């Protein structure tokens, strides 16, 4: 396979069957490996699309500075695209994210502004929005509300899945900006009657939910509930357990959000198996486990690892 440059290699990721985790011949799990993207995560798709859209409408030009609230993958993807396209990048992220993320961003030449751990990404979004007001020449692509985010999935992830798995019955992905489930979900619903679109949402430790008041809550602007069939909350303990299962049963070294997604997918698989229905469940592996090694998720007992993850933003 040959591409003219790195950006051309975004997407086109493989779909891998999971025969050992699939409950039976009529109910099959399929993993879409988004770590097979230039910077190792699904976010390469949206970074490429958001930047291209901003260039097209004139928001980004030579020497522009991009500002984004991101605690990891989006920042890394944007850092790569910024390097290739010639922009500066400033990332606002909570201080309690894993060391690998910050080191990688800095290696790409991005600047990092840390926001307080308490309040998690809500706080990072708030800080970034304030900074954008103060520096009107900086361009905040704003992944949580940028239609190019969902559109990237509508135009690439969805069609790839349909081409590889026309018999798809369920699509399961993590819920963050909601772009993946919104874009992929919309596409699949248009083409596959009866397909179920399921979101798996990480459930963090209490620190992340410690808001000053409920009006500080946040629902991404991209979120449209009607695209989903269901939405599950998955604890860090369950996500961890499933991430290790993926590695042990299938040899797949995935990030912790993938364990979260697998947990929901296995629930759907069990339901289908019990009711004797055929199922072909595609689940999205957002990234591999490299950036999470320092969280201790892959070593020691599950209980030890779960305790370590408690205060961290693992997905």
């Amino acid at each position, binding site marked *: 396979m040959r591409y003219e440059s790195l950006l051309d290699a975004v997407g086109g990721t493989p779909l891998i069957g999971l025969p050992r985790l699939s409950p039976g011949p009529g109910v099959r799990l399929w993993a879409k490996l988004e770590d097979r993207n230039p910077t190792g995560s699904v976010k390469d798709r949206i970074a490429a699309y958001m930047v291209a859209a901003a260039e097209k409408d004139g928001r980004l030009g030579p020497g522009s500075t991009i500002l984004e609230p991101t605690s990891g*993958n989006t920042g890394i993807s944007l850092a790569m695209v910024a390097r290739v396209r010639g922009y500066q990048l400033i990332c606002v992220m909570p201080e309690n*994210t894993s060391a690998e993320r910050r080191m990688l961003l800095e290696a790409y030449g991005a600047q990092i502004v840390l926001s307080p751990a308490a309040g998690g990404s809500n706080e990072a979004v708030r800080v970034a929005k304030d900074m954008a007001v103060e520096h009107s020449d900086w361009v905040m692509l704003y992944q949580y509300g940028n239609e190019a985010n969902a559109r990237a999935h509508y135009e690439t992830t969805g069609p790839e899945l349909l081409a590889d798995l026309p018999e798809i019955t369920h699509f399961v992905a993590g819920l963050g900006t909601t772009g993946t489930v919104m874009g992929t979900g919309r596409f699949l619903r248009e083409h596959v009657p009866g397909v179920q679109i399921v979101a798996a949402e990480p459930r963090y430790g209490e620190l992340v939910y410690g808001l000053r008041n409920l009006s500080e809550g946040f629902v991404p602007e991209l979120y449209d509930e009607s695209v989903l069939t269901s939405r599950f909350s998955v604890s860090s303990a369950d996500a961890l357990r499933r991430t290790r299962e993926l590695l042990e049963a299938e040899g797949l070294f995935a990030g912790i959000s993938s364990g979260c997604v697998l947990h929901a997918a296995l629930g759907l698989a069990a339901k289908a198996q019990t009711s004797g229905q055929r199922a072909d469940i595609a689940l999205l592996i957002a990234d591999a486990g490299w950036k999470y090694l320092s969280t201790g998720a892959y070593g020691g007992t599950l209980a030890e690892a779960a305790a370590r993850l408690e205060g961290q933003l693992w997905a």
Partner: protein
Amino acid sequence: MAIEVRIPTILRSYTGGQKSVEGSGATLDELFADLNGRYDGLRERLIDDAGLRRFINVYLNDEDVRFLGGLSAPVRDGDTVTVLPAVAGGAR
């Protein structure tokens, strides 16, 4: 009949600091009304004229109740209801 309801930090002032309380009811709506009887004011933080408040998420056995019938969602003995504020969450 006992249904466990997990309360987020921000609402524990209504439950005397308890992070988990028990209630009963045939639906989520009844359950919240039952809790409100003992933890005055809690219901109003969860529900407004339009139903479940926008920045409140409620999960029944880990599934978002907005996909299970919302406040009409049936609840049973042994179920777990988790209340959480809507957040941007983690690393993206």
